[in-house]
């Protein structure tokens, strides 16, 4: 009989085919969808994230695991919804106006998804108004802003200010990108910063106090 541990291993090793058979099998054996998520998928991505942090695996290998998790989620999501279970945390992420760099932002989004967050990715060149619209629509707990150009750092500052001015004082604002520092985060009133995708999950959890 297959176990939750088998599913976790399959995700860690990025074996999508195995995931496709294991998930229905485990559900049939009576295990709750929420348990598969919290005891297999999220811990698996945690292991992969740790390995990546320690330079034991490369991004392509990490993404194979992420895709395996997505495979599982395709089956689990409708069931979770049916049971009225929503992800505990929602995040909106985007690259600020005038900036098209998105490789780093995409990796952060992947890591957040791996941690079980519901992630809404607004893409690149996102205006303050678009961020605010998304906050009003999705009511996220976290908003991630990315900027890679020194010349779009002011757009990041403007976006943070606009979000606060629009009255969204509870949402946690996390920022990142090559020219960004903790002191810049402090200066513009962001709630957190992380220098890479691997620690973006920790930064998000710290900002949320979880």
């Amino acid at each position, binding site marked *: 009989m297959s176990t939750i541990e088998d599913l976790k291993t399959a995700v860690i090793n990025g074996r999508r085919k195995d995931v496709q058979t294991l998930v229905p099998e485990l559900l049939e054996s009576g295990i709750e969808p929420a348990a598969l998520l919290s005891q297999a998928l999220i811990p698996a991505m945690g292991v992969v994230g740790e390995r990546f942090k320690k*330079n*034991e695996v*490369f*991004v*392509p290998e990490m*993404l194979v695991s992420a895709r395996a998790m997505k495979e599982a989620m395709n089956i689990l999501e409708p069931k979770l919804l049916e049971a009225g279970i929503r992800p505990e945390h929602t995040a909106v992420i985007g690259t600020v106006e*005038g900036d*098209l760099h*998105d*490789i780093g932002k*995409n*990796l952060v989004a992947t890591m957040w998804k791996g941690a079980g967050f519901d992630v809404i990715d607004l*893409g*690149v*060149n996102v205006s303050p108004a678009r961020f605010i619209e998304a906050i009003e629509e999705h009511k996220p707990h976290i908003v991630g802003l990315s900027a890679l*150009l*020194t*010349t779009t*750092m*002011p*757009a990041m500052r*403007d976006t943070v200010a606009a979000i606060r001015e629009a009255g969204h004082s509870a949402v946690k604002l996390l920022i990142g990108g090559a*020219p960004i520092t903790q002191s810049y985060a402090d200066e513009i009133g962001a709630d957190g910063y992380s220098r*890479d995708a691997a620690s973006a999950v920790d930064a998000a959890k710290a900002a949320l106090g979880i």
Partner: protein
Amino acid sequence: MKYKTLAIADPAKLIYGRAPRPIKTRRGMCIGGGLIYPELNFTLPDINIRKEAMPEIVRHYQQIVTEALERAAELEAPGVMLEFETLPPMTEHPALGMEVVNILLEGIEDAHDKYGLKAALRCTPNDNREFVRPPLMRSGRYWDAMLELFDQSAAAGAEFLSIESVGGKELHDDALVNGDLRAVLFSLCVMGVRDMKFIWDHIVAITAKHGVHAAGDTACGFGNTAMVLAERKMIPRVFAAVVRAVTAVRSLVAYECGAVGPGKDCGYENPVLKAITGCPMSMEGKTAACAHLSPMGNLAAATADLWSNESVQNIKLLGGMAPTCYMEQLVYDCRLMNTAAAEGEASALQMRDWLVKSDAGRDPQAMILTPESSITIAHAIVQAPSHYAAGIAAARAAVKILRETNEAGCLRIDAREAGWLDRMDDELDDMPHTEDAFIEEMMDEVDLEKFTPADYGL
């Protein structure tokens, strides 16, 4: 494929400061004619670029050009290239870009009047076509504005036009983070090659109209993205090295359309292009650490005709403003290399070989860009019947070089990367024989929301 043979087939002739097809500037620099010259590149500190900020922006560029050229003259630089790589709003609104172009041209004139300094301007507009998603590659306001800035800057006196074009990048970032060589080949050699042909026919027409030089493109958004990701341990270095070899096929198209160089600094693939075309090349290495890290800070200089710092913000360092400090570093590097060359061919080669040897064994990408490897890859490219076949041939040649130098103990490859050589060989073995067959296969696999096939004639 236009080039069927190599302009430089002997590795001993692939050397800094000398190119079979040198270029003279109006003020009398001869690029590739025996001397290596500095090429300074600079950018703004954090400023929101809009109309109201223009007075401050103007002050920055005035300060950069005045102080950096003054220092170059004090250090007796034999000549200087300035590169104005615009920031996106300056191409989007050519009037903003032209304001800066004119300041730089005035600064160049002033420095000539005051110190007799020979300087020239390379103007590099942004390829902003990807500001709309999926990008509009062959029309629209971004395309029009880019051509306008090319045209106006050449009319005003910029002697060299370059770009870091982005055609094919829609699929390439994903190809990189997934370590997918097949998708890399599709992005660079199917999409990229087609877009390069389109854009460079336009640029060459503009340079012909104004009697200036079409100076070449770079696969920066492809090869350097891979290199930076590898430096950050996100993708394997051997993979980034093979991607670099393939980028040469894409960048070559500019020269096939009539570009004459000097190729743009961030094209680390330039040694391969110099071997094929004989055109002079700009390179960047250790003096570009202000912009990004690289694993071949010395080696990059070995075959360069211009030596660049890629980009530095106009901020204050202890020695002075950063562009002035970088000008000084570039001038000293060039002075040393020119001094070696002045002592004769043997000294120049000795200098070159030290530059090469100090990096080559430590990094796969450095190893595939040594003069010998560059020529091997160049050979593979010119012998191929099509760009598609050339991409596969370049990749194969690169994998072979990595495998052989590693086995011979000349190159260190990280243990967890070793399997990637087999993985890449397998992918290359599975490539369809014809480009048409490849396109047919890929059209079923790729995300058609990311690009518009018709914009690539697909």
